[in-house]
């Protein structure tokens, strides 16, 4: 579905009034990212009105990650690359969605998917994304898109195509697709912010290099062609290869700068169990393996080994249960092994036919987690495994 069509469906009232008032009128200038900014002209006022309503609904969404410490960390990084005004006016919301994505609404609400936080590897990469999104806001990219789209097809065509639907997170997250020129402009603005803040600007390219490698890994495990150079029908982003190329060439002469890997890890790692679990359950074996290996660059921890065991056990192809059992055992040998490692080991062993060892491991899990929500089922599997 055309994302703008969806937006316009949501903004039907504002749209209708805009069409009767005509496109002429005051043109907003300067950055809207200042305290007390009032939208100018009928289009911007309409967009802001709609978005204010959507924002009220989103703030009570069940699918937001409400973590004050993490949100204030994201804000701290944003404020390093943003003007003092922008730092004050932009609102950051973390959306529980395992896909890599971020978005900015025309009125300054910055949405970050949890799946993006799983993939970004350093504070500098995060700064690149936050600076990029901020640029969309400050340059009013969505307003420009709205005007361009409207003059090309007219309101009626949009409204006719739009239908009706709730203004949920999925729609909001997909509303703001920008033109290739706008994406490029935002990328370059992001780099400027990074340089001014002393961040390692080359990290901006690393994001795309990593995403491309992940797409290759996903495709290889599925035995299909990688999507890294594929664009969807409505995907206006520059292809990742092109993006990677200009980000690399614009930063080749930059000083090294601060990557901030440790700071990023420290801020995100409390959220890892949820982020990894959401990823591992997506049935994307290759991509998940790639991401786990990335998280384990400074060593495989108990939780990471446990997640790897789960990944193999869920796939359940020939040899996977034996490999899963191996990862669970490695996890169990670590001081930070999650209780789930004993559960996973027991269930993997039950599938390999090693009943006695399966029973021992499941019983150990139930000892460690006596309140387990599946204890009756596990007790039966354990009993049947003797």
């Amino acid at each position, binding site marked *: 579905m055309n994302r703008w069509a969806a937006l316009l469906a949501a903004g039907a009232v504002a749209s209708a009034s805009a069409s009767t008032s005509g496109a002429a009128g005051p043109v907003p200038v300067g950055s809207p990212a200042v305290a007390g900014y009032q939208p100018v002209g009928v289009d911007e006022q309409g967009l802001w009105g709609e978005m204010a309503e959507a924002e009220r609904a989103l703030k009570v969404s069940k699918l937001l990650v409400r973590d004050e410490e993490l949100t204030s960390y994201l804000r701290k990084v944003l404020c390093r690359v943003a003007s003092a005004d922008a730092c004050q006016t932009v609102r950051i919301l973390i959306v*529980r*969605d395992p896909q890599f994505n971020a978005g900015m609404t025309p009125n300054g609400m910055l949405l970050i998917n949890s799946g993006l936080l799983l993939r970004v590897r350093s504070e500098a990469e995060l700064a690149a994304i936050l600076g990029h999104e901020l640029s969309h806001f400050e340059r009013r990219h969505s307003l420009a898109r709205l005007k361009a789209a409207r003059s090309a097809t007219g309101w009626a065509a949009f409204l006719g195509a739009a239908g009706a639907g709730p203004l949920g997170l999925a729609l909001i997250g997909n509303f703001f697709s920008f033109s290739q020129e706008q994406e490029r402009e935002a990328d370059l603005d992001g780099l400027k912010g990074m340089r001014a803040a002393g961040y390692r600007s080359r990290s901006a390219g690393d994001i795309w290099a990593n995403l491309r490698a992940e797409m290759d890994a996903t495709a290889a495990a599925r035995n299909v062609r990688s999507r890294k150079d594929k664009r969807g029908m409505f995907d206006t982003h520059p292809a990742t290869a092109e993006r990677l190329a200009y980000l690399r060439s614009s930063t080749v002469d930059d000083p090294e700068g601060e990557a901030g890997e440790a700071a990023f890890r420290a801020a995100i790692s409390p959220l890892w169990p949820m982020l990894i679990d*959401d990823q591992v359950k997506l049935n994307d074996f290759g991509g998940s393996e790639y991401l786990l290996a990335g998280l384990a660059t400074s060593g495989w921890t108990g939780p990471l080994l446990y997640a790897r065991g789960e990944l193999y056990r*869920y796939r359940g192809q020939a040899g996977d249960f034996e490999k899963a059992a191996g990862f669970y055992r490695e996890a169990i040998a670590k001081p930070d092994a999650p209780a789930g490692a004993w559960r996973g080991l027991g269930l993997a062993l039950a599938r390999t036919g090693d009943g006695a060892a399966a029973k021992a491991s499941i019983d150990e899990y139930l000892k460690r987690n006596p309140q387990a*929500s*599946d204890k009756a089922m596990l007790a039966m599997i354990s009993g049947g495994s003797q």
Partner: protein
Amino acid sequence: MNKLLLGLAFAGLAAPPLSAKWKLLPETMPVAVAKSAMKVMPGQGWNSWSFRPGKKSELWSYDGPVLNQIEFIGGVVDGEPFAKERNKKDKPLPKFNSKMLPTDIAQAYEQTQRIVTRSPDFTIDSMEPVTFAAHPGVKFTFHFTRPDEELTRKGEARGAIIGGKLYMITYTAAALHYFDAHLAQAQAIMDSAKVD
């Protein structure tokens, strides 16, 4: 019509033919479901949809599928997914295997629902052994929220592997009011399941 369209959005289904109809089921006569060997006693007030969400499934509802629905999955064999696979290349679904443990069935159902409904918060709340269609099986409860709505749904599922094939019945409804309102009826339908 609206309810039907919303139902499609909910089930993540392709558009059914215009001829797709809801039919009130007989109250006290066992009916075969999902074109499989599974039969259940409908009880009062349930409607079957002539449009089946997958080759081996069938959908019933009491108040419309947005509010409550029962899905029957009947006779899934090794290598088949738990739901219709719409995008095999980019969104492949987990496949059934007759050697699956009861916990594996719940796990694969969760993964399937996370992929099909894009609900990132899908959670299994409880799991226990149950006798299903006179065979040892699994019962589990769950909840989830789809990102295109702000409605939390609850569900209860029962299933078993019978003769190497998977048979499952899942009851899913809006957590507020509707789940509790028809839970006992849905459980009676699950209790009545027979697989010949």
